[in-house]
């Protein structure tokens, strides 16, 4: 792993125009991913983690307004014309989705859909496209790939379909793979296999992975660093070990205390009082303050700036100082 930055998100704001008003879904977040790094974006449903993922490839619906910068290898993706962006989608940046069951087109065979990747991006091939596709299917350990080439999506199980999606993304040898809850729809055993597969492929192709999840288990298994998101803001970001063993932000602490650990001690699970805020009228300052037991006057007014805990561990909280 080298230390160069592959993708840098700077001050990203995303608003959605809705009938009830403007939902301020992402409130100025900054993140970066290095070459070969696995970064996890963790948070509860509705905190905007998928929105971040989709804004990278500009897949958000038309009612979304995106501000900020998303620099990929130095180019701002948000400024690129659609035609240039299409060359990056799928080739430079791959994306797999939460719903492997429906992310494949039901009316075409697997082989047909996978070949499409080679055609869209005019990828250089050594053999016939069919042989390349079968090779990719082998890479993701799909049994009997020759046969599966001719299968329709509904003939495959969920785990198998997710493998196909992953194989498809590998065609362009992307430097970044965005995995939006790649295992949430799968059985636990299949989950583990898919995660292992992703890690193996990361090592083999030296891809960076941005994994979006609400599952701390997935984070612990895969990620080098993790960013904890709450209501469109980043609460805390740092190496996985630091965050899990030494959480600083009250939200991170609450989140980890709400987690069943599965060993002997029969500890009562805690929950974080209150509800996720309405994003049309979000609380000012730190968006966590209405639920935070330590909230101060400052938290209600000023959006916290990052506080350095250690090398790469930052917390966005007034409690820990700052000016």
């Amino acid at each position, binding site marked *: 792993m080298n230390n160069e930055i592959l993708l840098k998100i700077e001050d990203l704001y995303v608003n959605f125009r809705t009938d009830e008003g403007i939902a301020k879904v992402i409130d100025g977040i900054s993140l970066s991913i290095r070459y070969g790094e696995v970064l996890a974006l963790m948070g509860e449903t509705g905190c905007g983690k998928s929105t971040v993922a989709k804004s990278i490839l500009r897949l958000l619906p038309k009612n979304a307004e995106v501000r900020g910068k998303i620099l990929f290898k130095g180019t701002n993706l948000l400024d690129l014309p659609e035609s240039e962006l299409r*060359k990056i989608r*799928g080739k430079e940046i791959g994306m797999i989705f939460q719903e492997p069951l429906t992310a494949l087109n039901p*009316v075409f065979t697997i082989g047909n859909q996978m070949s*499409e990747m080679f055609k869209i991006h005019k990828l250089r091939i050594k053999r016939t496209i069919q042989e390349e596709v079968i090779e990719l299917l082998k890479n993701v350990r799909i049994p009997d790939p020759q046969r599966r080439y*001719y*299968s*329709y999506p509904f*003939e495959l199980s969920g785990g198998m379909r997710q493998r196909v999606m992953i194989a498809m*993304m590998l065609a362009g040898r992307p430097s970044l793979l965005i995995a939006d809850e790649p295992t949430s729809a799968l059985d636990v055993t299949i989950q583990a296999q898919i995660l292992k597969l992703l890690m193996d492929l990361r090592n083999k192709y030296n891809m960076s992975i941005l994994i979006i999840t609400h599952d701390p288990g997935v984070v612990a298994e895969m990620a080098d660093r993790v960013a904890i998101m709450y209501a469109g803001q980043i609460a805390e970001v740092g190496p996985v070990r630091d965050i899990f063993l030494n959480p600083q932000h009250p939200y991170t602490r609450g989140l980890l205390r709400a987690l069943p650990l599965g060993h002997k001690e029969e500890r009562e699970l805690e929950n974080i009082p209150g509800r996720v805020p309405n994003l049309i009228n979000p609380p000012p300052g730190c968006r966590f303050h209405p639920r935070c037991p330590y909230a101060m006057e400052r938290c209600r007014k000023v959006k916290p700036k990052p506080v350095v805990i250690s090398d790469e561990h930052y917390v966005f909280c007034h409690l820990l100082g700052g000016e």
Partner: protein
Amino acid sequence: MTEKKRKAVGVSMWKLTWRRFRKNKLGMAGLVMLCIIVMVAVLAPVIAPYSPIEQHLEDRLQPPSPKYLFGTDELGRDIFSRVLYGSRIALSVGVLVALISAAIGVTLGLVSGYYGGIVDEVIMRIVDIVWSFPSLILALAIVSVLGPGLINAMIAIALTMWASYARIVRGETLSVREEPYIEAARAIGESDIRILFSYILPNVMSSILVLITYNIPSAIIIASSLSFLGLGAQPPTPDWGLMLSTARTYLTIAPWYSIFPGIAIMFTVLAFNFIGDGLRDAIQPERVG
């Protein structure tokens, strides 16, 4: 990979549809009827004992007999031969009109549903306008502008029929557009045009197909009506509607003259309607995917 192996694995949606369709008795009856009509249309010159426009003035308005199976008309033309040749006109009118209106309507429906906004608004209001007229009346108005004739009648009918395709395809596009595989297609860098025609179109194809089989008979009936009113096919074309129109005058003295073209129209329309019903039942119950 051999074709044989391919069959063993891939059971496409169309194959499943065909399997269900085969169990539908009326649908299969419709298919057999259609096969008969198509064969008649193709083999008309072989089967027909006379030319459809050949006049036998000494045998005018003869009742059915071994010499003239369905009798003769006011100019002594063999009605049997004319009915046989009429199938060519009916089929081509039905199929062409349905295809032209589908081409117009499907394209507009896809664009309307996929892009939404002002484009959608404009297209759908035009659809509303077209739909607010009964199709026969609208077709009559268009033909009276274009002038009578079979080609103009077909254009007029197509211009009244595209709207139902546009509306149905738009509705389906709205729902298919939200499917994750459309987002996935965008994520791998597919262009809008490819997404419309290779991702959305195949997924709405089944509805279009059902609509086409329903629209063919309607087109045949409207075309016959226009011919009946003198605005469609012109004499001496052996068109069923046109034959009915002349036969009307002789209804009391030569009832066979109107009965046989009438039966031909009914047979053809029924065939398509049976197929349409069968197809709808075979496609709708549970969608594979």
